[in-house]
């Protein structure tokens, strides 16, 4: 219910509306709740409304952090992995 998914903005429309693509599926949604959305931005989409903008820089940094987290225990015994 609270699920929101990443969608790419492909066209801005009047009235703070916009066309977004969700993995190729195109929908008309409201962009009224997020400031200064531009074509090419990714937004977090929830029941027809963009709730926030996804920051590609932060996404890359989190992925780098996750890789780091995954490397810490490489030499630890991992018998529970079974």
């Amino acid at each position, binding site marked *: *219910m*609270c*699920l*929101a*998914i*990443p969608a*790419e903005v492909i066209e801005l429309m009047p009235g703070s509306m916009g066309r977004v693509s*969700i*993995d190729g599926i195109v929908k008309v*949604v*409201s962009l*009224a*709740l*997020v*400031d200064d959305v531009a074509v090419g931005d*990714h937004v*977090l989409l*929830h*029941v*027809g*409304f963009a*709730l*926030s*903008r*996804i*920051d*590609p820089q*932060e*996404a890359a*940094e*989190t*992925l780098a*952090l*996750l*890789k780091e*987290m*995954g*490397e*810490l*225990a*490489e030499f*630890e015994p*991992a018998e*529970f*992995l079974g």
Partner: protein
Amino acid sequence: MKFASEFRDGKLARKITATIAAECRPDRQYSFMEFCGGHTHTIARYGLEAMLPGSIRLVHGPGCPVCVLPVGRIDSAIELACDHGVILCTYGDTMRVPGSHRLSLLKAKAAGGDIRMVWSTLDALKIARDNPGRDVVFFAIGFETTTPPTAMAVKMARAEGLKNFSIFCNHVLTPSAMRAVFEGGSLPLQGVIGPGHVSAVIGIDAYREFSDEGMPVVVAGFEPLDLLQAILMLVRQVNEDRPRVENAYVRALPAVGNEKARGVIAETMTLRKSFEWRGLGTLPDSAVRLADDYADFDAERRFDLPYRTVPDPKSCACAEVVRGIKHPQDCPLFGRGCTPDNPIGSCMVSSEGGCAAHWLYGRHNMAGKGQKEPA
């Protein structure tokens, strides 16, 4: 899907669980509540619990709006469609929730009620525009994530002068539910995985009251790696004995949340003095209704809609499942009389409900099929 599939890498997931296992202290137990039903779904779907070391326990929380909606509210929605003759628009999740007398919106629709599933409040507005001679009511449920789209619809309806549109407002507040769970002394918890999309609206400071009282909170996204990251961060907080609120979902969640969305809610809605929740009882200041300035759009004021408290079905353990006190499997009805095809409690309806997630992905699944009773 960009910004989603990268966070599903199974190999990396195993490496991170190895780090988690290495950092768990042998003398400690770690019980973390995932507040949000969306997290419950991810955990069950990707089998995360089985990958984690035995000292970590994940406890399902009350963050499934369908599960915490009391039967009386479903009854009112059915009444709107059947007795008041409105076009009732609703998100799909509510259609199969059991009301009184084994009714549901789905059955009411089959019996002739004009009930329409919508994807967005924008669709409900369109239905109102297309049917100027009919009253159109949007059955609004959900936590803070889902509230701004309802608030926007009210504003848009007023701006357009759409007089046949109103809201049956059942939006509830996350911090109230958290407080109720902690105060209700459910299981001993060492930390909470905070809801990512609720927080995208309310911001992470909303949980400071809990960390100030010693409860570590890490807000997480909804992919498996997001959850593992949050769990590792919680383990570290517990080990350091330094409870705080942390954000593990920075790509989509500014710490301040969405001020614009909160502004629209503040303009159109106001706190209810009290609201009944399924499983948590009647809680003060835990839900919103339309503000007096928007009373014309409030279905509860437009139609005669008295609220009646209805007890949960006998032997249904939904109340305990919602509070994390019981595991779905502990309910005597689980898989015997209560299944997604024939739900008795709401936790079996929405895929984010604890019982549905456990039914769909749980280990009992293979054996469970044979136990299914005829409807």
